[in-house]
């Protein structure tokens, strides 16, 4: 049933060939490389390294909470420092950098059929500034007074005062400088991701033929470019308050019996700026995950994604809506009740496009030829975890429910489920999925199974009990809970249990890291397209893709990214760059 359309007679690509920079030495090829694939690996490795630091910090926190009084070196100050650095690293230096800098760099040029990013030099600078930001952040561990302990939200006035670790030492300064650097570096990378999607697409790759991964990363990058300036403004103004003595955020304060020189500033102003960045940040992390998981599910269920158009619209819609919900993080800041009502409404509305996406994933699975590969397991785990975390979000989005819960472990459990565990599961799934393309070898299956089950079940054993003790009233941000009336013996047992689970899940990540390194040498040979996928990155002439990605001629795209199990086609997948029209149930080309 194959009738070749005149599409075959198309002349070669009319897209202007970009002038590629060809490296001449080992240094420009592997270190100061302008190749997006190398930059992607640099981003990923750096993000993973700093993420390991955050993982260890979470162990230390859990040890203190689970077994209070056992570890002398975890003082209250140290505990706050661990909390702050864990949160900041995970949200910004790991998740944002890995999704956009790592996956964005690797996948965008390959998936849209470009030779490289449109501004490779700026792209390279982006990574090195990111690395600098990470180094400044790490240096605060060794600075006098240690890193800042202000909490990852860095609320003034406490963030820059004496009582807070690092407040009057170097900690907060280094944190703010590091964030400013990160934002500058990210803006450079972000320009590349956006403009490459706009301008770098190969012939035939219309916007509506883009894989959803690209749609997710693209929209998230646009959001990040508009949201990060808010953090930038907040950081610069706080830096002025701390270093030069201005009063943007600092009200009149008496500290240790002494009147500070600040006066009249508004801490709420900082909260507005911070959350104007902070809430879109949740979706900056979530949208790439949405996109990637759509592709994983479609590929491993051998079925086209259900409702592609609606998926695209939902991504764009969520991106736009996420800019008008920020104040739901500030219900307890004493704002006007009508203001809270407005933000509760917008918060609940955002559940609509999100639910559409969840339904579409489930309907894609419906009667699909589901292969329970490791990427698929992680994708399925993501769906349940995201729904779980999203449901508690509906609780917390309502002012009357949020006010009593907002200072409890319930909130910690909620946001870890929805923006910690869920995106991380997608990252794992994506690594198992694309590792064969990056290295040419498969990751070890047995270690993968172990990693998946321990991580998935372990994460639930950590965070389900945490919801429960949160509802009992156990507060967050306290390093020692033993004297509290809410902390009954059984609650303390649960707390210890959570800590042990956290250690075990952490151990599983070590197995994963070992797998990553071991498989480079010893993994099974993957071939060019082990998952029999349709998107362009699997159709490169070499695996791993060489400099310039596609050999002599750029691919021409003839179809969307989801032609799986097309009736009448020879194989159960049709690559995007294969000409001709297949199947009787479809319209003419």
């Amino acid at each position, binding site marked *: 049933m194959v009738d070749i359309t005149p599409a075959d007679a198309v002349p070669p690509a009319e*897209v202007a060939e970009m002038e590629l920079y060809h490296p001449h030495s080992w240094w420009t090829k592997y270190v100061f490389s302008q190749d997006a694939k190398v930059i992607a690996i640099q981003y990923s490795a750096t993000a993973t390294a700093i993420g390991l630091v955050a993982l260890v910090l979470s162990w230390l926190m859990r040890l203190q909470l689970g077994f209070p009084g056992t570890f002398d070196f975890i003082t209250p100050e140290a505990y706050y420092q661990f909390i702050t650095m864990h949160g900041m690293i995970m949200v910004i230096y790991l998740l944002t950098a890995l999704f956009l800098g790592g996956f964005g760099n690797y996948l965008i040029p390959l998936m849209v059929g470009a030779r490289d990013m449109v501004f490779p030099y700026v792209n390279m600078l982006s990574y090195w500034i990111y690395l600098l930001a990470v180094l400044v952040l790490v240096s605060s561990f060794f600075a006098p007074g240690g890193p800042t302990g202000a909490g990852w939200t860095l609320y003034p006035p406490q963030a820059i005062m004496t009582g807070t670790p690092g407040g009057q030492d170097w900690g907060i300064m280094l944190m703010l400088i590091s964030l400013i650097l990160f934002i500058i570096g990210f803006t450079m990378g972000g320009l590349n991701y956006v403009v490459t999607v706009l301008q770098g697409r190969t012939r035939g790759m219309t916007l509506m033929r883009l894989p959803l991964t690209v749609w997710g990363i693209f929209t998230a990058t646009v959001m990040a470019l508009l949201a990060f*300036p808010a953090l930038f403004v907040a950081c610069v103004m706080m830096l002025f308050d701390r270093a030069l003595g201005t009063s943007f955020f600092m009200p009149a304060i008496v500290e240790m019996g002494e009147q500070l020189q600040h006066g009249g500033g508004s801490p709420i102003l900082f909260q507005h700026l911070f959350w104007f960045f902070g809430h879109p940040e949740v979706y900056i992390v979530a949208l790439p995950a949405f996109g990637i998981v759509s592709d994983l599910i479609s590929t491993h269920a051998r079925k086209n994604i259900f409702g592609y158009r609606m998926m695209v619209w939902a991504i764009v819609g969520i991106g736009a809506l996420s800019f008008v919900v920020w104040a739901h993080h500030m219900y307890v800041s004493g704002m006007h009740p009508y203001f809270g009502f407005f933000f509760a409404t917008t918060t609940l509305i955002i559940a609509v496009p999100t639910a559409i996406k969840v339904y579409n994933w489930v309907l894609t699975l419906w009667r699909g030829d589901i292969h329970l590969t490791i990427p698929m397991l992680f994708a399925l785990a993501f769906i349940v975890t995201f729904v779980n975390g999203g449901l508690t979000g509906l609780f917390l989005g309502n002012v009357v429910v949020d006010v009593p819960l907002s200072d409890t472990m319930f909130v910690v459990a909620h946001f870890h489920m929805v923006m910690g565990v869920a995106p991380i599961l997608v990252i794992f799934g994506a690594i198992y999925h694309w590792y064969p393309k990056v290295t040419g070898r498969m990751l070890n299956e047995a270690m993968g199974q172990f990693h998946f089950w321990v991580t998935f079940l372990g994460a639930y054993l950590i965070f389900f009990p945490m919801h429960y003790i949160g509802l009992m009233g156990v507060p967050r941000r306290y390093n020692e809970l033993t004297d509290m009336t809410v902390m009954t013996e059984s609650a303390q047992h649960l707390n210890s249990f959570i800590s042990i689970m956290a250690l075990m899940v952490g151990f599983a990540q070590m197995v994963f890291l070992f797998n990553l390194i071991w498989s480079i040498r010893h993994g099974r040979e993957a071939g060019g397209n082990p998952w029999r996928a349709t998107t362009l990155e699997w159709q490169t002439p070499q695996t791993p893709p060489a400099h310039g990605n596609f050999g002599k001629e750029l691919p*021409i795209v003839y179809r969307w990214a989801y032609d799986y199990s097309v009736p009448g086609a020879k194989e159960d997948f049709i690559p995007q760059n294969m000409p001709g029209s297949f199947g009787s149930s479809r319209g003419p080309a």
Partner: protein
Amino acid sequence: MSVILVFLLVIVGFAGWWLSHQRLMAKPWLEQGLIGDIIGPEGSTLPTAKIGLGVFLAVVGCLFALFTSAYFMRMALSDWQALPLPRVLWFNTGVLVLSSVALQCAAVAARRGQIDTVRLGLVTAGLTALAFLIGQLVAWRELTADGYLLTANPANSFFYLITGMHGLHILGGLVGLSRTTAGAWDGARPERLRLSVELCAMYWHFLLFVWLAIFALLAGWAATFIEICRQLLT
């Protein structure tokens, strides 16, 4: 936060207009073959660098809109005392307008291939932009001499912060401009020179626009304007 929301509304409007031209209603699962035949190469026919600069300027605009938002929110608190603007700012504004005009002339000349006019325009633009920066420093010095120090009042803090931020952006633009100018003498390819002159002009016009908005903000006219808008709405 109303200023930044209005700014985002403009961005959303633009994005919506652009998306509406991208066949978002297409049914890609029914379309096989090359749609490219109908709409030509994917992406815009504008030079990629221009689109890149456009996206960057949107980010810069966002940054200044956020500073403006913060300005208005802080202004509403009781300790705010507006500071008198130095007269030299009027002169600076004139110089920056001149700089923008010179670059526009250079861009027009580059399109016509008159290399001498291009060089003249580039150098004039560079010198006037430098003069603007010096003028801004003079304004800072006048203010500090009159006792309007950075920490004395939030109005002062914002004045130094926002003008400083704008000055840094001009400084960054000067780096690009000097590279373009060097290219105009080293005999860069005409089409390449034309593109970089146009990019400089675009950046300069935008920063001029930002400066005019900041000037209105710092002089207090923006607040009056918003007050009028608010009264019209209520």
